């Protein structure tokens, strides 16, 4: 029955898809053009790219991971709180054959689909810039989606506890944006101060960035890939484990 919750999202999305697709397309386009090519030409001239890799090749997969993080965070804040609190969509759903478990499974599946969409469009732009050369680089699409899920489910659990949307902008300001800028997408984590490096590696994004970058550049070390996947999965599963009782308590009083 979780698929019914996905259907609901699809029906609503059908009205809004143009806007979403535009954002998913133009964000990588502008970033790769300005930062990748523009700023990249300076980087490449000064130091021969990052570790011998042209800057745009270094940047693009990292930016993909950061983008799915940001998109997943957004999807699991305002739209979910609206369905809990403002529009009471979940109350209406739970008066039917659907259960809280279906709602959670459906929403997680929907975020996964959305992240696959975002990552696919991003991959197309990367390919247009000549960054994604290989067939294997297509694997970056599910990897980036998983990176998104590692943020999605814990944030969903957080949203299940909120009475208003005040905390969301705080999370963006103090968690999502700093990670976006400092979490390894734009420059190596190793150039951060020591304490911040440890913090960065404790978050899913650092692992998502490394995984995506390895898949696109084709230099992934299997043992490290396993570590990155494990961390991302652990966050995603932990989020689901927490969201279940929190959402049940919230909706079934």
């Amino acid at each position, binding site marked *: 029955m979780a698929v019914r919750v996905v259907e*609901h999202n699809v029906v609503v999305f059908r009205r809004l898809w143009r806007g979403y697709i535009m954002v998913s397309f133009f964000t990588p386009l502008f970033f790769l053009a300005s930062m990748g090519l523009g700023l990249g030409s300076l980087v490449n001239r000064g130091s021969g790219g990052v570790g011998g890799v042209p800057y745009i090749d270094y940047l693009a997969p990292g930016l993909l991971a950061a983008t799915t993080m940001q998109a997943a965070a957004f999807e699991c804040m305002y739209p979910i709180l609206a369905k809990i609190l403002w529009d009471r*969509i979940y*109350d*209406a759903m739970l*008066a*039917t*054959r*659907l259960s809280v478990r279906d709602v959670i499974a459906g929403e997680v599946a929907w975020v996964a689909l959305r992240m696959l969409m975002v990552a696919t469009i991003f991959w197309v732009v990367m390919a247009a810039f000549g960054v994604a050369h290989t067939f294997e680089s297509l694997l970056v699409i599910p990897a980036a989606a998983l990176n998104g899920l590692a943020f999605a489910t814990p944030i969903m659990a957080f949203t299940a506890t909120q009475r208003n949307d005040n905390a969301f902008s705080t999370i963006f300001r103090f968690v999502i944006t700093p990670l976006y800028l400092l979490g390894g997408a734009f420059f190596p984590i190793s150039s951060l101060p020591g304490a911040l490096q440890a913090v960065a590696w404790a978050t899913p994004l650092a692992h998502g960035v490394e995984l995506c970058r390895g898949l696109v550049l084709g230099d992934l070390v299997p043992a490290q890939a396993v570590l990155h996947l494990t961390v991302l999965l652990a966050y995603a599963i932990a989020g689901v484990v927490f969201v279940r009782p929190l959402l049940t308590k919230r909706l*079934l009083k």
Partner: protein
Amino acid sequence: MTDSIASPPISARNLVKRFGDLVAVDGIDFEVAAGEAFGFLGPNGAGKTSTMRMIACVSPVTSGRLTVFGKDPEVYGAEIRGRLGVVPQADNLDLELTVRENLIMYARYFDLAWSEGRKRADELLEFVQLDERAKDKVDDLSGGMKRRLTIARALINQPDLLLLDEPTTGLDPQARHLVWERLYRLKQRGVTLALTTHYMDEAEQLCDRLVVMDKAKIAAEGTPRELIAKYSTKEVLELRFPADEQPAIDGRLDGLADRVELLPDRVLLYTSDGEEAAAAVHRRGLRPESSLVRRGTLEDVFLRLTGRSLID
């Protein structure tokens, strides 16, 4: 499903609902028979919605025993809900979707095929006279139209039991009569109805049996007629005095009726003979601005049992 023949649609024994320290439902017993229309009356906060939500399997029972179609909501929630139609106290229609889409989407939540959902949606829109608004956004409907759409939505799965929490609050008289007529038709088709209301005429019109709840408990139970016979009198004399004289009335009507009720705006005398009581009031030298004899109603029962006017 055979259980609907064997077990009553709803059965509650010593049912309790607590929210922290607050006791919203305090050990109530009732049973609703198949095909019956059963009402919950009571002042604000009496526990009607809390009871309805437990029956709807969206609110865990604190203690006591509740069965719906003979089954425990905690174990068989999804299965029971598949046979329920629910009209919640506050509308929760999907504002992102059109009127018709709301019904079709809801059909999907009951696992009906898209084509079946579309078919039923069109039938139901006609049933609640909203077929001309099918393509409109829900947000553009008036409050009463939204209410009717919510009722239509509750029927999409052809429920055996319909739970209606204040179904006609906010409806104009015409729309209210439409809803009553539709509910009556459903009842004739064998659908069991459980409803809450603040309108005594609605309760008298629709309910075969009802309970009056007060402070989380059931204060009385019976058919409307039984309740009127037991808690009211055959006739009621309503007197209105000029506002400044009303306080002085206290005590001067003693002995003229079985019971005297002083309300802020009027005085009620419960008696078997209203005309005679009116004459007696006159003989005591009292000159009310207006006096009216009417039959005892559920409203009098409500007042007697809860000590409150209807909507306070």
